[in-house]
C-alpha cells in the first residue's frame, strides 16, 4: 500500500513527528524535535539518559501528550489521548519494564484489553492462533505458559507479540537489550530483521552505540531534548561520531587499566546459599574470591541472585549455608555494622532507597558511616562544622555539582547522587568494595567518572566486587569475571590486559543462560 500525505502526494514516511515540544516541571524534555520513520526500516533513536528519547516515544505511543507540534501517521494527522488510540493507529510500544501480568498466561496477556473475545475466555482457540503468529516472525513462546515462568527474553517476545496481535505496524522498542544476555540479543536482532523484512517499521531506542550500528538502517540522535542528527544512514557513521553527537564532546570508550599485581585474598565466598524475599532459593551454591588490587565481576541476567549476593556480603540478608570470609574473618550473618567496621563499602543498586536517605542533606548522607567517630562527633554530639567541612571537601574532590551541601539529595541527578555515594564509600578507605550496577541509568560522562574511581581504588589496593549486567563494562574493568546463573557459579573467565575475544563473550553468554563453563564446546555449538 502506498502512503500519501494530506495533498495526496506519495510520502515514504509511515510516521512523521513535526516540531514536537514537551515540557515537564523544570525541564524541556523535547525542544522542537523532528522525527520521521520509513516503512520497513529499523530506525535507532540514540541519546543519553534524560536526552528525551523516551519522552518523544511516549508521546508517539499515546502515554503523554505533546505541548506543541504535530504527528502524522501514514500522512494523516493524529491526536492520541491514550495508548489505545496509538495502537489503533498501528503504533505499539514495548516498554523497558515489561507490561505483563506475571500470574497470567501468555495468551491472557496478549488478549488483555481487547474487544474479542467478548465475555467467555476459550483460551485454547486463541493459543493456537498466537503460536502461529509467533512462528511467522520467529517469536517462539508457549502460549499456555504463565509469564513468571518465562525468561526475560521470552517475556520480551510476548510483548512484541502483544503489539503485533493488535496489528501494530510501527513497533517502538525502548532499550530492548538492557535486560538480555548476548545470545538473546542476537535472537532479538534476528526477530527485528524478520519483522522489518515483513514491512513492519521499528524504532529502536538505545544509548548503546555498538548496538545501534549493528541493527539499525537509520539513526536519529537527541541531546538535551534537541535533535543533533536527523535520519543519518547508519552504514557510514562511526561510533566515535555518534558518541560526539550524543554527548557533545569526544568520549573515551575504554577506561585505561594500569598493571597491578594482585595481593592477598580479601574476600572469600564459599558455597553460599540464601533465599530471596519470597522464600525461594536465590543463591544455591555460589563461590568466589577476590584479592586486593583486583576487580572481580559477576555477570548474569538480572534476578539470578546478584542482589541477594551483595546483601549477604554486606550483612543485609542472612545466608542459609556457606561462608563469607573478609581478610580471614567470618562476616556472614552479622549486622551490617560488623562488615562496615571491617572495611566493607557498598554501592547499592538502588541509590534512592538503600544508597541514600533522599530527604537528608548531602552532608548527612556523606557522614552516615562516619558520624560515630571523631572529628565528626564527640561523645554523642555531632560536630556540624567538621561534618560540613568533610562534605565540602568531598564535594570538591568528587566534583559533586550541587549549590551547597545542605541540599537534600533527592534533588540531585542520578550521576551526582552516585558521586555522593561513591564519595562516602571510598573516603572510608575500604578494603572491599561491593558495587552493584554502579553505572545503571547514568550518562556517558558520569559512567566514565565512576569507572575511573573504581580503577583508582583498585590501584590503591582495594578488592572490588563489581556486579553488573553491562558485559562491556565488566570486560573493560575486571581482572576476572564470574558468571552467576540461578544462584550458582557457572565458571570464571580471566581477562589479561583488557584483551577480550569473541570466544570469551560467547562463553560468558552461554554461562549466563545456564551452561557451566566446563560443558561449553564452542566448536560443536556452530552446527546447532
Amino acid at each position, binding site marked *: 500500500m502506498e502512503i500519501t500525505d494530506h495533498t495526496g502526494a506519495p510520502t515514504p514516511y509511515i510516521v512523521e513527528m513535526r516540531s514536537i515540544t514537551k515540557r515537564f516541571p523544570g525541564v524541556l524534555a523535547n525542544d522542537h524535535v523532528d522525527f520521521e520513520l520509513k516503512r520497513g526500516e529499523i530506525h535507532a533513536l540514540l541519546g543519553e539518559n534524560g536526552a528525551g528519547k523516551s519522552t518523544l516515544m511516549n508521546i508517539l505511543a499515546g502515554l503523554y501528550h505533546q505541548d506543541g507540534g504535530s504527528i502524522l501517521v501514514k500522512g494523516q494527522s493524529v491526536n492520541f489521548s491514550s495508548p489505545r488510540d496509538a495502537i489503533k493507529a498501528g503504533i505499539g510500544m514495548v516498554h523497558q519494564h515489561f507490561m505483563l*501480568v506475571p500470574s497470567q498466561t501468555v495468551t491472557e*496477556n496478549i488478549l*488483555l*484489553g481487547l474487544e474479542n473475545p467478548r*465475555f467467555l*475466555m476459550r483460551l485454547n482457540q486463541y493459543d493456537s492462533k498466537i503460536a502461529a503468529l509467533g512462528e511467522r516472525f520467529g517469536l517462539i513462546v508457549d502460549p499456555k505458559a504463565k509469564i513468571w515462568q518465562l525468561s526475560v527474553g521470552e517475556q520480551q517476545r510476548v510483548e512484541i507479540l502483544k503489539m503485533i496481535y493488535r496489528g501494530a505496524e510501527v513497533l517502538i522498542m525502548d532499550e530492548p537489550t538492557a535486560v538480555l544476555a548476548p545470545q538473546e540479543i542476537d535472537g532479538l536482532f534476528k526477530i527485528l530483521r524478520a519483522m522489518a523484512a515483513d514491512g513492519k517499521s521499528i524504532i529502536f531506542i538505545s544509548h548503546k552505540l555498538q548496538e545501534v550500528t549493528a541493527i539499525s538502517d537509520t539513526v536519529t540522535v537527541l541531546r538535551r531534548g534537541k535533535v543533533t542528527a536527523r535520519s543519518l544512514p547508519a552504514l557510514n557513521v562511526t561510533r566515535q561520531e555518534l558518541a560526539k553527537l550524543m554527548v557533545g564532546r569526544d568520549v573515551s570508550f575504554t577506561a585505561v587499566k594500569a598493571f597491578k599485581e594482585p595481593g592477598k585474598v580479601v574476600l572469600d565466598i564459599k558455597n553460599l546459599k540464601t533465599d530471596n*524475599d519470597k*522464600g525461594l532459593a536465590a543463591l544455591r551454591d555460589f563461590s568466589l574470591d577476590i584479592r586486593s588490587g583486583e576487580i572481580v565481576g559477576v555477570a548474569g541476567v538480572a534476578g539470578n541472585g546478584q542482589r541477594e549476593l551483595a546483601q549477604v556480603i554486606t550483612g543485609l540478608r542472612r545466608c542459609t549455608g556457606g561462608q563469607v570470609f573478609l581478610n580471614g574473618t567470618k562476616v556472614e550473618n552479622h549486622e551490617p555494622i560488623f562488615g562496615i567496621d571491617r572495611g566493607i563499602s557498598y554501592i547499592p543498586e538502588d541509590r534512592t532507597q538503600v544508597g541514600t536517605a533522599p530527604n537528608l542533606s548531602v552532608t548527612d548522607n556523606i557522614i552516615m558511616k562516619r558520624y560515630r567517630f571523631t572529628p565528626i562527633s564527640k561523645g554523642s554530639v555531632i560536630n556540624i562544622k567538621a561534618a560540613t567541612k568533610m562534605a565540602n571537601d568531598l564535594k570538591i574532590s568528587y566534583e559533586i555539582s550541587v549549590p551547597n551541601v545542605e541540599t537534600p539529595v533527592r534533588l540531585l541527578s542520578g550521576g551526582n547522587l552516585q558521586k555522593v555515594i561513591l564519595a562516602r564509600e571510598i573516603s572510608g578507605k575500604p578494603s572491599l568494595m561491593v558495587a552493584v550496577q554502579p553505572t545503571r541509568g547514568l550518562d556517558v560522562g558520569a559512567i566514565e567518572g565512576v569507572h575511573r574511581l573504581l580503577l583508582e581504588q583498585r590501584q590503591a589496593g582495594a578488592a572490588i566486587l563489581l556486579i553488573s549486567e553491562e558485559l562491556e563494562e565488566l570486560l573493560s574493568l575486571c581482572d576476572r569475571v564470574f558468571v552467576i546463573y540461578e544462584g550458582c557459579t557457572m565458571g570464571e573467565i580471566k581477562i589479561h590486559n583488557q584483551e577480550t575475544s569473541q570466544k570469551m563473550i560467547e562463553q560468558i553468554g552461554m554461562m549466563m543462560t545456564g551452561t557451566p563453563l566446563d560443558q561449553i564446546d564452542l566448536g560443536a555449538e556452530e552446527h546447532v
Partner: protein
Amino acid sequence: MEAIIVILQAGIANGTVLLFATLGEIFAERSGVMNLGVEGMMLLGAMSAYSVTIATGNPWLGLLVAMLVSGLLSQIHAYITITLKADQVVSGLALTFLGTGISLVLGEGLSKAGAVSLVPVYSVPLLSAIPILGKIFFTDQSVLVYFGFILAPLAWFYINRTRPGMHLRAVGEYPSAADALGINIFAMRYAYVFLGGMLAGLAGGTISLAISPGWFSEMTTGGQGWIAVGLVIFAQWDPFKAMFGAYIFGALNRVILDIQLPKVILGIANPFFYHTYLGFFLQMIPYAFTILVLVIGSHEANRKRMGAPAALGIPYVRGERGL
C-alpha cells in the same frame, strides 16, 4: 448424629452471611483495593434492610436498598483511596466507624418494631431427600442460602474464565500493564469496590432478614465483618475456598452457642454453663483466629506465597515505575 446435622445446618445458614461479605471483599481486593470497612457496610446493610422491610413489608426491596446503600457507602472509601490515593487501611477503618455510627443513629428504635416479613425459607424437592447432606444443605434453608450456593461458583467462573474477570485480575496484579492496553484502572476499581459494598450490604440484610432476624444495634453484625476480612486471606482470594471457610466459621459460631447449653458435658459439670462469663472466651475464638490470619497475611513474603494480588493496597498513579 442428629446434633451434628443441626450444627452443620446452622453453620451453612450462618456461613452464608460470611460468604457474601467475603466474596464482596475478594472482588474489591482482586482489583487492588483492600476495604476494611466491611463491618460498617454490613451493619448499615442490616439496618437499611430491616427498616425498609418494616416500612414496605417487602424483604426483597429491603435487601435491594441495603445493597445500594452499602454500595454507596463503599464509594467514600473508593474516592479516598483511588482518587485521593490515601492509605487503604486508615480509610477502611474510618469507614467502619462511619458505617457503624450512621447505622446506630438511624436504627434507633428499630428493635421495638415487632415482627416483620422475612426472606422465605424453602426445602428443595428431591435434593432435600438425600440422606444427611439433603438435611444439611437443602432443608428449611433461607432462599439466600441457596443463592450463596450459586453465587460462589459464579464468582469463581467470572474471575477465572471471563474477559472482565481477566481484566479484574490484571488490574490487581499489574495495573500499569492493564493501563497501557487501555483498561480504565480507576473505573474498574470504583466498580469492584462498589460490588464489594453491595455484597457486604447483602450480608447485613441476610442477618437482619433471614439468619438471625431483628435489629440489635452493633450486636446485629457483632464483628462478623472482621471475620470476613480474615477469611479473604484464609481463602487465598479464591471464591471456592471462601465458601469452605465461611461455612466452617458459620458452624463454629453455632458450636460456641451450643457448648454453653448443657449442664453436663462429657460426663463433667459444664463450666460454660455454670460460669457464663467463660462464654465470652468461647465467643472470642473466631476473632482470635481472624487476628492470627491477619498477622500471617500481613507478612510480605507470606502474602506473595499465598497469591495475594500484587498491587493490593497500592494506589495507582500513571507514569510511576513498577506497579
